[in-house]
C-alpha cells in the first residue's frame, strides 16, 4: 500500500485536523455546561455589514435560543467529526461556515473597535481567520479516510460494491 502523503505530511495533517477538532469540541462543551452562557454579548457587539442581522438574532429571545443551541451543538459535533475523522468533510464544511460567521460578526477591520478586548493585536487577520484557513487545508488535504472512522465507512462501502459485482 502507499499513501500519497509522506508519513510526516500525514502526521502533520492529522495533528492539524485533531487540534482544530479539539478546539471546537471543547469550546462547545464548555458552553454546554455553563448555564449562563449565551451568544448575546458576542452578537450584540457585532459590527460590519452583517451586524444588523446578528443584533436582530440576539434581540429576539426565541432566535437567540436557537442560535445558542445550534452554536453549542454545532461546535461539539464539528469537533467530534474532526477529531475522530468521521464525516470529516462535512464537519470541516460546517466548521468553515461557523468560522466565517464568527469572523463576519466581529471583523477585525480598520475602524471597528470592540468592547470585549481581544487578547492580541489584529488587523484583518485574526485567529478565527487563521483557523478558517487551517480548516480549509484539512478540507482539501483530507485524512479522514486514512486515519479516522471514515476509513471504515469507505472500506465497508468498497466491500459492498465488490459483493454487488459478484452477485
Amino acid at each position: 500500500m502507499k499513501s500519497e502523503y509522506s508519513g510526516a505530511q500525514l502526521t502533520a495533517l492529522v495533528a492539524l485536523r485533531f487540534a482544530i477538532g479539539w478546539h471546537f469540541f471543547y469550546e462547545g462543551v464548555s458552553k454546554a455546561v455553563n448555564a449562563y452562557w449565551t451568544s448575546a454579548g458576542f452578537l450584540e457587539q457585532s459590527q460590519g455589514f452583517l451586524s444588523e442581522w446578528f443584533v436582530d438574532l440576539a434581540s429576539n429571545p426565541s432566535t437567540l435560543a436557537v442560535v445558542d443551541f445550534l452554536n453549542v451543538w454545532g461546535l461539539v459535533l464539528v469537533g467530534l467529526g474532526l477529531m475522530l475523522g468521521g464525516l470529516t468533510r462535512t464537519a470541516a464544511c460546517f466548521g468553515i461556515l461557523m468560522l466565517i460567521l464568527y469572523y463576519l460578526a466581529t471583523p477585525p477591520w480598520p475602524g471597528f473597535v470592540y468592547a470585549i478586548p481581544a487578547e492580541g493585536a489584529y488587523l484583518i487577520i485574526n485567529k478565527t481567520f487563521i483557523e478558517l484557513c487551517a480548516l480549509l487545508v484539512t478540507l482539501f488535504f483530507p485524512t479522514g479516510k486514512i486515519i479516522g472512522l471514515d476509513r471504515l465507512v469507505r472500506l465497508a462501502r468498497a466491500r459492498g460494491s465488490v459483493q454487488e459485482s459478484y452477485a
Partner: protein
Amino acid sequence: MSDEIRNGDDGTLDDADNAEGDSPLESGDLADEPASEPAAGPAGSDAADEPTPARRTAASSGSGGIGRRDVVKALATVPVFGALGYSAFRRKGLAAEERRRLLEELGIEDEGAAVFSELENRTYSDTIRVGIIGFGGEGESLIRSLGFAHPDWIQARREAKIDDPRDTWFDEWLQQENLNVEITAVCDLFDVRAERAIAASTQPIRPGGDTRQLKPAKRYRHFEELVAAPDVDAVVIATPDHWHSRITVAAAQMGKHVYCEKCMTRTEEEVWPMAEAVKSSGIVFQLGHQNRQMESHEKARQVVEKGILGPITLVETTTNRNDKWGAWVWDIHEDGNPRTIDWELFQEAAAHKVPFSLERFFRWRCWYDYGTGLAGDLLSHEYDAINQILSLGIPHSATSSGGIYFFKDGRDVPDVWQAVFEYPDRDLTLVYSATLANGRERGIVMMGHDASMDVGTRLKVTADASSTRYKEMLEEEMVKPDRPMLTYESGFKGVDAVTTATQEYFASRGLLFTYRGGKRVSTYYLHLREWLNAIRFDGETSCNIDRGIEEAITCHMATKSYLEGRRVTWDPFQRKIV
C-alpha cells in the same frame, strides 16, 4: 447560521462525505491497495464513488474487507481524544469538587437566583382605584407600570423597536400582569400633564390582556379634593419632595393607601407627622425605592447574613452621571406659563416664596426649596439599597461636603457632593460619593476583613489576601485574591437596551429593571405590585414607613451637615438631628 446547518442535516451529509475521496492526493488511503495502483487522478474525481476494477480487486483480495490494521488506523485518534477528554473532565471534576468544598465552607447551599415569596397566580378580583398626584416624568412611569401608558409612549416605543430591535421595553410592558387597577383621579398643577394622565387612564392598549373599557380619570385642582374622593382607594404621590409629607398625611387621614416617591420628606420635621399619620391610620405605605425588588440585592443580603465578607468596616457607594438630564436640567414644556401652571399652590409648601419661575417648576430638584438635591434624589436610593442589604438604620453621625462645580446655572444644590456616615455600634463607615459631571462607572462596594463584595445587577465576592477566615483556602489556592470566589448572575440571557450613562447608572442600581427567573422585569412594576398585594392580601411592603424614616433622617443628616458646615449626630432619645 441556523438555516444552513438545518439544510445540511437534510441531506448534504452523505453527499459531502462521499465526495471526500475526490482529492487526487487521497487515492492511496486504502491500506490494502497494491502499490502499483495508479492514483485516481484529477479527472477521476466525479467517479470516485464508483470503485474502479483495480479497487475492487484490491478490496476483495484484502482479506475480504476490513482488516485489523484498518481498524487501528480508523480509530487511531480515539485514544488521544479519550486522554484529552479524560483530563479535561477530570480537571472539571476536581474543579467541581473544590467548588463544592468552597460552598460548603461558606455555608451556601446553591448559587441559584434569589427566591422571592411572591404572590404569583393570585386573582385580583377586586379593582383598586388609584389617584395620581403629580404626573411628571416619575408619575408617568409609575402609572405606566400600573398598566396605563400614554399613547405617545406606546408610539415612541414601537418606533424605537423598529430602529433598534434590542429595545424591548414595550414587549416587556405588555407582558406584565393585569393588576386590575383603575386610574380614577389625577391632580397636577400643570394642565398639560393633567391632560396626559387623563389620556393614559383610558388608553386601551394595556398589559396582561386587560380589555376593560374605562372611564377617564377625573382631574382635581387640589390634592385634598382628590384624597377625599370616594372613588379613590389609594394614591400614588410623585410630586416634588416638599409636598410628600402633607399629601401623605391628608391621604392617611382619609384612609387612602399611599405609594410615595422618595425622598420621603424634604425636611426632618416633616418626617414625624407623616410617620404618625401612616401608623395611626393603618394604611399600606410603600416608599418608592424600587431597588428593593432587585434580585441581586436579595442575594447580597444572604451573602452578608452568612458572614462571608467577615466584619464589614467600610461601605462605599456612589453616583456618577454626566448629562444634563442626569443633573436635573429637564425640559421646560413649551406650554408652561402662569396660565397653565398653578404656581402659587406649587410653592405653598416651600420655604421661600419667589415669583413664577419655569426653571424652578420644571427643574425643581436644583433648589432646596423643593427637594434636597443629590441627598434626596440619589443618596436616598443608594442608602436604601445598603439598608436593604445590611439593615443599617439611622447613622450615629454624618459629615458632608461638596459644591456647585459644574452646573453653574443658578441652582443652590451641589452637583459634586460627598457624605460620610458613622455607625460606631456596627463598627462601620458608609461613604457616599457623587458627581454629576463624570460618567465613570463606580458601584457599591462592601469591604469586609475576609472579602469584598461588588453589588450591581451582578454580584461579585472576592476574598481578601489577608483574610483570617480564608487563610488556609488562600494558601491552598482554593480561592485567589485576584479572582472572585463567588459571583452571582441573574440568569438572564439576552441584550439589555441601555443607551446613556444615566440609564446605565439607573440600570446598575436596579432602578429600571431586575430579573425574575431569567426574565427582565421592571422594578417599578414589581414595587407597585408589592404595594397592591399588601393592600389586597393584608401584607407588608418592603419599603414601609420605618424604612422611610431611616431613609429620610439619613439623607437629612447629610444635608444638614452640608448646609451648616459641621458634623451632625443623631440623638436616638430625643429622636432629633443635633
